[in-house]
């Protein structure tokens, strides 16, 4: 199997007659950590949603392991871990039940593995409490427990450190570092500065057509 790499060819996105970005070309290999930069509303989240397959509103090509995304939805879905702006955690269920669902969809994991993942984020004690009773930070930590369960090489994380305290951020950065070292590829947006080495950046504003310009 070809090693994981992501290639964008002439990617552009136009929504409601507004061009968010155009002519985006990039290639990222295994072991890359990429941070998307840009002010709010410039299309970072849109790009993340396009790359993760949530949105199909784009022109151009996206290649994963050398093949177009449309040709390999099953394989790509297994290779991907996407955590978006919203945590994706159901409030009526407990953290353990939430993780059980995610684990069953992407393979399987025993309850002990799930509890261990929760423990990495300090949430093991809360595993049987309905998530509606947890704070925003705790909810996000439950969502991020998936980082400790996933074998997917590609991680796309949209503002993962929201509502996480400093020690939590440090632990998560260590986990991301681990993923990079083992040949994974991580795309991330964050308002906070990352204290990791070797971060490649992509400034989305560089790919925006002239403001208010005629198409």
């Amino acid at each position, binding site marked *: 199997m070809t090693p994981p790499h992501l290639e964008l060819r002439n990617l552009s996105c136009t*929504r*409601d*007659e507004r061009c968010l970005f155009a002519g985006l070309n990039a290639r990222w290999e295994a072991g890359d950590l990429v941070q998307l930069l840009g002010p709010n509303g410039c299309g970072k989240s849109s790009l993340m949603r396009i790359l993760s397959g949530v949105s199909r*509103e784009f022109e151009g090509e996206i290649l994963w392991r050398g093949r177009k995304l449309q040709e390999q939805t099953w394989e790509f879905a297994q290779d991907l871990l996407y955590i978006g702006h919203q945590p994706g955690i159901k409030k009526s269920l407990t953290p353990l039940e939430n993780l059980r669902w995610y684990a069953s969809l992407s393979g399987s994991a025993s309850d002990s593995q799930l509890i261990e993942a929760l423990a990495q984020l300090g949430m093991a004690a809360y595993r049987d409490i309905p998530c509606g009773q947890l704070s925003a930070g705790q909810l996000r930590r439950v969502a991020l427990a998936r980082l400790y369960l996933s074998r997917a090489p590609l991680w796309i994380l949209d503002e993962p450190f929201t509502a996480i305290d400093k020690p939590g951020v440090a632990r998560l950065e260590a986990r991301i570092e681990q993923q990079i070292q083992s040949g994974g590829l991580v795309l991330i947006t964050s308002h906070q500065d990352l204290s990791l080495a070797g971060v490649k950046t992509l400034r989305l504003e560089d790919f925006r057509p002239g403001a208010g310009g*005629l*198409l």
Partner: protein
Amino acid sequence: MVWQWLHRWGSPRWFYEKTGPWVAWLGLIALVLLVWGLVWSLGYAPIEHKQGQSYRIIFIHVPAAFMGQGVYLLMAFCGAVGLIWRVKVCFMMTKAAAPYGAALTFLALVTGAIWGKPTWGTWWEWDARITFMLILLFLYIGIIALQAALPSRDTADKACALLALIGSVNIPLIKNSVEWWYTLHQPATIKIIGKSAMHESMLYPLLLMIFAFWILTAFALLLTTRVEILRREFRTRWVQDLLAAEREEGKS
């Protein structure tokens, strides 16, 4: 070949520029046919012996009902083409067609009611045809309401296209179930149009009116689609140039 043709006509600018000369012609033809049809059917077609003069309303009712259904199917077709091949003009046409189709269906309902008064003695009668027209009107209103409610234009376009498709799949189901329901509750009654009973002196003006409505529909749809194109592409260079040229002409 079809792919190229689709892409060319799907470009809003191309569509706008190529259909420019057609609009005036279509309008003129529609006007001529309508006047001819109305005069013939309302003035000269023979009196139907059972129903007297009032039956003449069918010359408006039937074409309106026909086109009401036809426009819905056109919307569904455009929606399908737009969704599969991502053609923008199709979505614009769907958006333009919905209120027009709703108006035609409403006209069919009103003329049906007017026809019903002298024939059955009531302003409203739940027979198969009128009931189906009412349901079709609801389907139209659903699409118009969805279009208005969704804030993002791209999503509204696609959602309405999908809804039009869903509706069109349901239309034969609804039509047949309403007819079945009607025969269930009123086995032997007057039909609105006894097909076999149509004499040719009544058939020809009817066909003319149907054709006239068809051309009128083409004219109206083309006009409203062109307006929609201008509205959406307002910020592009070709529209700005066009408007500037019109302003120049207006001054001189």
